[in-house]
């Protein structure tokens, strides 16, 4: 009995301590910038565009990292536990690492379905929703559609609108500011889009190959034709037989440009390129993939610059 009492005492002390701690660390309401955490740098860049200086924003994954395989490090919990808003790409892109972070962070505001959880895929045009039966014989297939949707300026605009609406909802006094920022962003994006389209126009309909299937939205917007992938199936590393098939396909279709995300090994793409007289382009799927690419505009500037040069050189 005595022992049991001791346990009860211990437990009650723990609970009392916990509650006191809760009181001490409760965040002061209002009068501070919204603290936004995003899963990827692209969402952070778009949030920054509309949030301006009324928010702080931080991404969990780095721009040069494979967003499917981020480690759920405890240091990310420190970011999440103080977040007012979590913006995610969704469509199961982060399924391998974000759920345990959300569970463990102890922050009620950013739990799935809470007001501080925003799945940006709801605003964007999603391509390649699998129809019919979905099995993993297709590789690491995303049953809800291709999650690499942000590389389309139209989607960028739509996501920014969604984020602006969410920021306004969480911080109503600053709503006019966010709307102003959004309008400014849309204006700059429209101008940039014209420039990008003019740059890409001569290459309409050109055929390219990508390493992973992370390019469909860009290809659709700028009218490129992705005819194959270095991976035999999403998430499955290249195999010799598939590589030979790909080389044959590229020769038949006269396709000379191989786009590779910065986190993949260049060995297979290089050998494909040398067999087809093609060119390997390490393009950036995300903001921050290279140091100088710090915002959504520079991402397109960088990729379009590389792409047009490669398409020009292999004409």
């Amino acid at each position: 009995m005595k022992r049991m009492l001791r346990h009860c005492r211990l437990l009650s002390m723990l609970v009392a301590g916990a509650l006191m701690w809760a009181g001490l660390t409760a965040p002061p309401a209002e009068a501070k910038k919204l603290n936004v955490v995003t899963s990827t740098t692209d969402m952070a860049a778009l949030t920054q565009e509309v949030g301006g200086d009324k928010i702080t924003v931080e991404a969990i994954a780095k721009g040069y990292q494979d967003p499917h395989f981020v480690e759920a490090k405890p240091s990310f919990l420190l970011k999440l536990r103080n977040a007012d808003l979590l913006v995610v790409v969704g469509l199961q892109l982060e399924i391998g690492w974000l759920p345990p972070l959300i569970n463990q962070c102890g922050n009620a505001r950013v739990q799935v379905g809470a007001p501080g959880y925003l799945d940006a895929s709801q605003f964007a045009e999603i391509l390649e929703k699998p129809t019919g039966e979905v099995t993993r014989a297709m590789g690491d297939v995303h049953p809800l559609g291709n999650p690499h949707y942000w590389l389309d300026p139209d989607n960028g605009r739509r996501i920014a609108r969604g984020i602006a609406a969410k920021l306004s909802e969480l911080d109503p006094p600053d709503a006019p500011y966010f709307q102003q920022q959004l309008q400014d962003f849309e204006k700059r994006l429209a101008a940039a889009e014209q420039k990008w389209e003019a740059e890409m126009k001569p290459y309409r309909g050109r055929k390219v190959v990508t390493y992973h299937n992370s390019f469909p939205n860009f290809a659709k917007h700028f009218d490129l034709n992705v005819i194959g992938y270095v991976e035999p199936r999403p998430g499955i590393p290249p195999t010799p037989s598939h590589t030979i098939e790909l080389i044959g396909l590229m020769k038949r279709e006269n396709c000379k440009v191989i786009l590779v995300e910065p986190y993949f090994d260049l060995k297979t793409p290089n050998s494909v390129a040398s067999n087809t007289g093609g060119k390997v382009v390490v393009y950036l799927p995300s903001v921050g993939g290279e140091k100088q690419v710090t915002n959504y505009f520079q991402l397109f500037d960088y990729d379009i610059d590389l792409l047009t040069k490669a398409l020009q050189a292999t004409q």
Partner: protein
Amino acid sequence: MRNLILGAIALVALAGALMAQQASMPETSADTAALQQKIRDLEDRLIALEGQVRLLKSTQATPAATTEAGTPAGSPAAAPTPAAPVATSVTSGGEQLPVYGGASAAAKALNPDISVIGDFIGAAGNSPSLPLAIQQPFQSFQMHESELGLQAIIDPYARGDFFISFGEEGVDLEEGYITFTALPGNFVAKAGKMRSAFGKVNTLHNHVLPWIDRPLVTTNLVGGEDGIDDAGVSLEHILPAPKGFFVDLTGQVFRGDAGDVFHAVNRSDVSTVDHLRVYKDVTESTNLDVGFSYSRGHSADKPGSIIPLNSDFITNLYGVDATLRWKPLRRSIYHSFVARSELIWSQRQQPGAEQRAFGFYTSADYQFGRRWFLGARYDRSDRAQFANLTDTGGSVLLTYWPSEFSQIRGQYRFTRYAENIDAHELLMQVIFSLGAHGAHPF
């Protein structure tokens, strides 16, 4: 949701009408531009609606969704028809034959994520039969475990996780708990049966272990394969710390039953586990994780003994664990290195003299290709009930990943038992995963 779909259909119809109109209009450029803008706006609104439909379908399927899915309203064929007839077909849905497939598709939205992980093990080599506890034995072929996972968000305040472990015969609830995720003050509480937070290996399911077996020290001092896996409550909190440090404290109280470590005779014989974790990112690709564990409970009987121990005997366990991880972010899918070690002290009261035993393992794993891992482990541990007997051992491992969802592993295991008997064993394992298994904590 019904309104959304109707709205989407109306928009498509409107957009089509506009495009038709555009073709027949005189081609003044101002008009064309205005129309193009209008179409773009409509496209935006359509995509927004599609997104909302997707969101509703995936997150909060309400009972109403069942009727919707049974109607053809969402099918592309219905899209060009005017909105009104579709609406009547929705309302008159009761007169139509029930569409079983559609209805169950909507009902599925609320089902938990279901997964099964198979763990098949084959073994060869000599494995001596000793009278005392020995390193985890394996038969020639064995469907070691089939772990059924059922995981879902329960409500805005909690989520639930069940892991039911099927042997070739017999079923065991490996874990089944509720996690309260929305407590004030950043607390995370759990209640149910769970693997306790004592050290690192004890928290891990079989299929995420870096080896086929568990280290000697686990077998000898911490309850073997199941470890300290008990019913109770857990409270976890991230403590304030200097910038860059992650410090986390977990306190757990259990019934007090855990394999051959703890046994509860009375209700008051509860066991406790406390774990302090300190984590630091050394660089972007390197991090260090150190943990201190303490556990206290009532000593369990020797396996097979008939007379229960007097519950006045206490076992104290102390543990220190350290993990160093390296993973270059730009090539994270190709290379990584993990070194880990756990030191465990057991202080066990039992009839006769108190036994003070110590054991540890040190292991390292290097990933040298996208699918290949090489590992090694050194083991040394006293036995909990006979601290003067010390077993040692070592293993080398090679692991191959055909994909993220399957794994093939070979392990050569050498064990030198305290009785001066050597065992050389070759273990093979295939792990395969079906369905949506939730990601595990780091």
